[in-house]
């Protein structure tokens, strides 16, 4: 596979670079000071990227009374997972979770299918006015009519307070189309030609040849798309003004974060006893932290495995078509 070969090459280059650098100069005092400062800086900066998540996490699993008194700073105490279970009692959160998950799945699948297909079609030189239509798509990346005009357009199309506003406008993603098109162009043309000689149609070639061969880039595009859908906040904010049940998780989180200390308003308490129990168990700080945690956990779980796809994405973007 070309992919692994490229990666091997990169690793080898990196090693060589380090080796040559190690032997190329003698360590001077200035170098040692620089190295220490360098490691220190990157260590601290990395810590600043990890610590907030860790801090949120330990606060959600520690004894809530200690959390309320601000006693949990570096390590958890009185570990329990009750907070996560109690989230089922938070108003509308379940809905928001379902909306976010389904839009991520459907939105990403449709976007990837469309991106692959359009990316393939625009590589075909014989298409009627190909370059015009390709530009027609690409220009939308640089130009938009503005927030209000887009909003008015959605109103006109009846897409406000409608779940479909999460899915349909995102299907055609110009940046991803450029990535896929560039990738498909790098696939040797002979493969396709021989398929056409055997009488295959464009659809067959796409399904049997292009789709499997462009899987690496499609994975990259899919992950970018999924992260975008999961994090999406603006469309929910703009278009769901009268449909609270269709708000995304990020929008819900935003609302909860800005809510003052009235916890009762957030809970769908089913009786005085239950209310008292939750008052005991949860406090505003903890519930905010817990909801933040469940919004960030999917990203943190997926990220380490997908990192190379992310990096490939930005590299391909730099090459641009």
């Amino acid at each position: 596979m070309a992919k692994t070969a490229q990666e091997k090459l990169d690793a080898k280059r990196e090693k060589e670079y380090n080796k040559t650098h190690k032997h190329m100069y003698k360590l001077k005092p200035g170098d040692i000071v620089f190295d220490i400062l360098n490691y220190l800086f990157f260590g601290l900066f990395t810590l600043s990227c990890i610590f907030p998540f860790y801090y949120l996490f330990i606060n959600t699993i520690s004894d809530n009374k200690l959390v309320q008194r601000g006693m949990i700073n570096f390590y958890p105490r009185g570990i329990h997972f009750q907070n996560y279970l109690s989230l089922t009692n938070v108003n509308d959160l379940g809905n928001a979770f379902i909306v976010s998950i389904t839009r991520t799945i459907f939105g990403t699948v449709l976007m990837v299918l469309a991106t692959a297909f359009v990316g393939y079609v625009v590589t075909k030189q014989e298409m009627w006015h190909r370059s015009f239509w390709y530009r027609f798509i690409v220009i939308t990346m640089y130009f938009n009519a503005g927030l209000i005009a887009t909003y008015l357009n959605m109103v006109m199309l009846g897409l406000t307070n409608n779940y479909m506003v999460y899915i349909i406008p995102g299907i055609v993603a110009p940046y991803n189309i450029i990535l896929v098109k560039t990738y498909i162009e790098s696939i040797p043309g002979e493969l396709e030609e021989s398929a056409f000689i055997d009488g295959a149609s464009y659809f067959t070639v796409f399904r049997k040849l292009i789709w499997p061969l462009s899987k690496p880039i499609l994975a990259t595009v899919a992950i970018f798309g999924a992260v975008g859908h999961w994090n999406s906040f603006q469309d929910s904010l703009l278009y769901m003004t009268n449909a609270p049940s269709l708000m995304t998780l990020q929008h819900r989180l935003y609302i909860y974060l800005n809510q003052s200390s009235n916890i009762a308003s957030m809970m769908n308490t089913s009786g005085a006893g239950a209310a008292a129990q939750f008052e005991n168990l949860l406090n505003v700080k903890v519930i905010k932290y817990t909801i933040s945690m469940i919004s960030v956990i999917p990203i943190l779980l997926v990220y380490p495995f997908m990192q190379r796809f992310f990096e490939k994405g930005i590299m391909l973007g730099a090459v641009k078509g």
Partner: protein
Amino acid sequence: MKEERTQTRGVAEYVYYLQRILIAASVLALFFPSMNPARICKLVSDNISLFTSAVSYPSLISGVGRGFRSGWIEESTFVVLYISAVIAVIGTALVAAGACCSLGNVKLKRLGLKFSLIGSIVQIGGYILTIVAYNMAANGGRPEKIEAHFPTAALVLAIMAAVILLTSLLLMAVLPKADASMEYEMESKYKLFLMFLPFGALAGIFCYLPLWGWRYAFFDYQTGGTLNMDNFVGFKWFIYLFQNSTTRSDILRVMANTLGISGLNIITQWIPMVFAIFLCEMKNLRFRRFVQTFTTVPNFISWVLVYAIALAIFSTDGFINTFAKSIHLLDANSEGTNYLMGNSLVWVKMWAWGVWKGVGWSAIIYIAGISGIDQQLYEAATVDGAGRFQKMWHVTLPGLLPTFFVLLLMAIAGILSNGLDQYLVFHNAENDKSIEVLDLYVYYLGLGSNGSIPLSTVVGMFKSVISVVLLFGANAVSKALRGESII
């Protein structure tokens, strides 16, 4: 004989052009509320298109609740109206399919004509039903209450459909018969175009159609109102924006914020590059990998989550305050400081959050650039007696400058687009004056509690146009200096 055939083909081509234009127009009309025949009375929203009326019955009757309750109009009228909209949309879909088939060979063309014929009849049926619904509304209940008006659009569209019908019949007569042995075929250039068409249409609807919304800038529009010649105000809002002292001072303040924050980002555009160079100076590969992995994470969380983190660390009961209390830097009973409030250093704070979130990610491209630099350059530099810092300065840095230059130009082109999310989530009552960037201003101006849609559309128009000019300017600079375009 041959000449005669080419002549008929010529005529047929012209008729086809006419028909395709009509079909394209009737498809387009589906998405314009002003061409919606279903608007038979005031109760139907002015902002609803025929397509929406047909797809969603709840949208169609969204404003009618009172009319039903007071008996001004029968619900059956709206059922008929809805059915008519569905029929009209189906008919339009059929004629559109016919137009697509007309790009094929004779056999496919003939099939397409059948589609257009049936489709246009269905369309006409749908529009007649719309007029029936209008009559039901005008004759039953209280027509004066609901202000029933004759749907002129239905008549116009029905005439268009009739012309499509006639042209289809004409073409059926003119076109030669297809051989029985003929297959359905189409030239591959059209085939590819038709495969592309649905996606092109989506791009058209969601990226180009909003430009039609710019017309709101020329009307005295109130939310829920209509656009018509009575409230056409020309360039009133454009002039108002600069003559009214409140909006003028707002614009000046907002532009200062926008340019201030963007300016900070542009002058610190080199940070990811230096980050990458220093990162690559560390010899411990495992540590480097670790740093790289974790510094890119913040890029993939939303701004809402960044705000959640900011609250957890910097608010009154956040980490900084509780930690200060635990080591007795701060009195245990004191209120603590909420570092997110306050109007000081807002630009710098916003810039710092942006750097924290983005630097690791932006550095990746430079890291890749460094591994692509020819090793022989470093060897040559060593031979010439260059030290570590000299190599960074004279070899690594020049190798990365082209990438830096492109990203810098892109940043300058995007100087007005700070994005909405970050400033919206960090916005509060105290930092209001310094955080309101153009995107946030447009949002509040248009969709805030006492917003003005026309005025914010004007601001949005200015922003879009200036951004495009800047982008092309940046592109021209890039072409002149490097001979390469960036878009």
